[in-house]
């Protein structure tokens, strides 16, 4: 009888180890920030908005609104100084400027590809708009008073308006 009892006891322990909690398979990243663990404090909003300043400041290849001139060799390519080449104010002969000459002489074909490289003259930088929109979608998750949130939302909206103003001034219109 004792024997039988201990048999069942061991089987019971084996089964016990099997029974388990539902969170076992819930594994969130340990070394990266995900949306689930962000958007809580004012500092979160602040460092998030820093990304907008960062792009505007150093990525003037894609986001040419500030003419930051800080992206090295490429930084002037879509700047206002180059855009003057659409007119006959300046007409450099270097091959790097061919694209502008082609527009001037009516030879430019609008690239069919929507990929980044197909677009010259700065018709890009949509990652900037996306960053703004993602922010605007999430700022309200933070448990802060509305004034604080509005401050960051306001910064984001300013950048978005600025970006589209730049696009409209260059291309006449932009998808909205």
């Amino acid at each position: 009888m004792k024997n039988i009892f201990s048999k069942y006891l061991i089987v019971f322990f084996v089964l016990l180890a099997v029974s388990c909690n539902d969170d076992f398979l819930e594994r969130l990243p340990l070394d990266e920030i995900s949306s689930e663990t962000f958007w809580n404090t004012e500092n979160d909003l602040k460092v998030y908005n820093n990304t907008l300043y960062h792009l505007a400041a150093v990525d003037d290849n894609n986001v040419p609104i500030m003419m930051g001139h800080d992206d090295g060799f490429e930084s002037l390519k879509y700047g206002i100084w180059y855009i003057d080449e659409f007119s006959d104010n300046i007409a450099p002969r270097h091959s790097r400027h061919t694209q502008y000459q082609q527009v001037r002489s009516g030879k430019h074909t609008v690239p069919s590809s929507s990929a980044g490289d197909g677009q010259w003259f700065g018709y890009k930088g949509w990652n900037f708009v996306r960053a703004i929109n993602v922010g605007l979608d999430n700022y309200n998750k933070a448990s802060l008073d509305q004034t604080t949130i509005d401050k960051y939302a306001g910064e984001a909206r300013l950048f978005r308006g600025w970006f589209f103003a730049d696009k409209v001034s260059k291309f006449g219109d932009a998808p909205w």
Partner: protein
Amino acid sequence: MVATGSYANEGDAMTVSGKVLSDGGEPLIGVTVLEEGTSNGTVTDFDGAYNLSVDDGDAVLIFSYTGYKTQSIAVAGRNVIDIALDVEISSLEQVVVTGYGTTKKANLTGAVSAISSEELERRPIASVGMGLQGLIPNLNISIRNGDPTRGADFNIRGYESINGGSPLILVDGVPMDLERINPNDIASVNVLKDASAAAVYGARAAFGVILVETKKGKSGKININLSTEMSAARPIFNMDVVTDPLDFIEARNSANIRGSGNPAYTETFTDAVRAFKNGTGPEWDVVDGVLQFYGFNNYQNSLMTDYAPQQKYDLSASGSTDRASFYVSFGMLNKDGYLNHENNENFKRYNGLIKTEFKVNDWLSLDEKVVFNSQQSDKPHFYNWDVNVNTVARVSPIQAITFPDLDHYLVPGDRAEFEPFIGKHFASLNFFPYLEQGGRETFNKNDIGLTQGITLTPLRGLKVRGDISYNTYHQDYQDVASKIEVIESQDIGSGVQIGNGFSGSDFINTISEYNQYYVFNAYGEYTIDQLPNHDIKAMVGFNQEWGRNQFIRAQANTLITPQVPDLNATTGSQQTFGGKEHFALRGMFYRLSYAFKDRYLFEANGRYDGTSRFPKDDRYGFFPSFSVGWRVSEEGFMSGTRDWLDALKLRASYGTLGNQILVSGGNQVYYPYISTLGIGSSPYMFRAGAFSPFVSPAGLVSPTLTWESVTSKNFGVDFTVLNQRLDASFDIYSRETKDMLTNVELPAILGTNAPKTNAADLKTTGWETAVTWRDRIGKDWSYRVTLALSDWQTEITKYDNPTGALSEYYVGQKIGEIWGYETVGIFQTQAEVDASATQSAIGANWRAGDVHYADLNGDGKITPGSNTLTNPGDRKIIGNSTPRLSYGVNLDLNYKSFSLRTFWQGIGKRDYWPSDNNWTPFFPFNAGHVEKYFITETWTEENRDAYFPAAHFSTNTKQNIQVQSRYIQDASYIRLKNVTLSYDLPQLLVKKIGLAGGQIYVSGMNLWEASKIHDPLDPEQLHQNVLSGENFNGAQEYPIQRIYSLGLSISF
């Protein structure tokens, strides 16, 4: 066994005689007959008869004979004992490990292959992968080079997924790196190939499972085995560089003249080289303050070692009583690298394994396992491609290597000034100073694994097992790039300039890695075998696994001294990095097998599997599979075939498995459904010099993201004929990988990368066969021939590539396709050039001696077109790099106590486009050296049938070495992977010196090969491999070696 006899009184010394026969009734000659526990013994004569005096009638006789089962017979007072020995276990009774249980091979319905420990024994292999290569059909093992720290790539049944994928490898049920365990501890390797066999492993088993079982204590007395093996490894180095500096100068001159019109070397220089060669001039000179070397450096041969030592030691002890059994082993491997230098690479592996089993009572037993694996490597730091092993392809024979010892340098009497520099190395393209003075890249990888298992047999037919394993892995890695000193220039006019070459910025990089893993298994198996005609076995179980990996990396610049390579002894800038990830798996699985009348076999396997790698609602998947078997030979209507047909079975299986492992850029993605936010710091935001942190938006993840699914179908035949002499199996299969993740294109206005979606399919089809023939010739000879042969091909069946771009996959593409031009030949005259289609799109200045490409599309121009399927220009599919018809052949021969084993491995069909990157060895004048074939096989007006075009520097223009049919290489090969000749020391002798057995052997690995591939390429060391996804620059690496060994193994 049959034993008959007449009786005498027990307790007295007596004589026993009799005959030993085979199970077929033939007398066996040379059978060892031993009185147990003594050295008293004899062997049978030509009639199989023996005669032996024993101390008393209680003695036990042991009959042993190669190829037969050893038998112990108690004399029990008999004077005459005739005995028939059974042949070693037949393949039909063989038990195959199938995962959470075992099956008799006869009842197997899935595609499973197995090998036993014997195939890995007595071979000078440094790792398990090396040993398994070619043994099991369609277990495809590729080894990139001869470096023992570079693990083999394992694959089952061909190309897996465009995102990679690999088989699940379990050692005693726990995922483990096979390369770290001791090959001598392996008892068996079982490969589960189809979905039916692998289904109990669910979402990890889509591309097959390799189950490795380690050895256990065997019944009988305690057996201690000690073995040692000494080897010499010689790199297989096929470069045959010119040994005459004038040949070199002439060859380089001709290439230079063709390119720029001028010779590479001046007349004066050439004359001086000639003068030294003829013994009329000096080896060194100083011209205008510049040292001139007119000699010959023999660099390639001085860098590669002739023979590097390798040692293996193994000690194991095992034993068992009716209550407990144990197996304990310790192993060590020490292997030096390929360099002819005291700072050669070195690799060591230490292994310890302890396994015990206790039978507590008739329904409970416990088992424990402790395993320790350690790998240690020490090699020179990699400074640059220019100063590592690839210098063998770059250093010219007339390059100055070390500062000369001259009577005077600039002016007579200035020797004292330059004396300190004598023997120091010159800077460019020279591995030696980096090897001599440079830092080392070292690692120490340790695994510790603990397992506790419990087995219950509470009722007849019921077995319940639970086990838990916990493994930790730790790696200590340190890479030291310390500064070295070289003489920067041969210009010593204004003094000798000492510099640091490629070691200008010195640093130490350390990584500490710590991984944990646990596995919990519990399953119950119920067998009903008392019913007539019905055999039923049901198994249900639970498995749960959890892993957590973490690493810390620290890098610090500027060592105080190379003598103290530690982070603490640095003064420069520092950086730290880290990372952690965790993941979990949980699943329930079952197996139901049913056999009716031992003829009709049915099996259902499946698993309900959950993984942490998918979102909550998508986390679980159910993966069922089915298989059936028909043992035709057991049917009544087959009774007429019994005398020659031992067994014939047909098998079929079908099943679908998921693949939870997503790979991106060669790394596993642990959280594919969670998009994470990037972080960074912005240097230029508000004021210079200040850094502001920022968090950037998360990328996109497809809301419909789900598993890749893999459906496999298998049909197989097994048969055994001619009294078990011939045993063969044949399988044909298809495996469809569906819903592979691919990149899709969305408009750029999305503002981020489009999420990967499950949008591509592929299908791999193939077959494999394994054949074994074994027989005896006469009394003393026995032999075995085995063949493992397999083949597969993979085709893309679904992929979104609307433009048909060849740079992407496309529907109908066979994996491994090589697109290239068709070569007409080499232009012999300018007239031929003018008359042919213009090749201006791929190069300029076409002349006689250049390659003539075929104008396939007839447009009068040779072009790559738009690189699309519809317009590939003048290119077509000129080959396929898929390794087809992989095979392995064993030819074994036994004569009395001698045994000769040979193993041949190869690939029957494979095309290879050699690396045309700069500084790689194959294409002439593509690197700095000149091989003899550059001269003999280069087109000149006198050598118009040459293989290669006229000499030109391929580093400057690739126009003659565009991918094309002429230079595509046939990389099929056969290689003699192993030869072992072993001799079992006579039983009588070993008994006399107090041993239980002894064996001495000589063995060789990679001793011979045949391949049509052009030197210096090795058909096993290719720079691109469709299976492993390998694609590196094609430079020379750690060569594969021929290994010669002498081994001794004794047991007592």
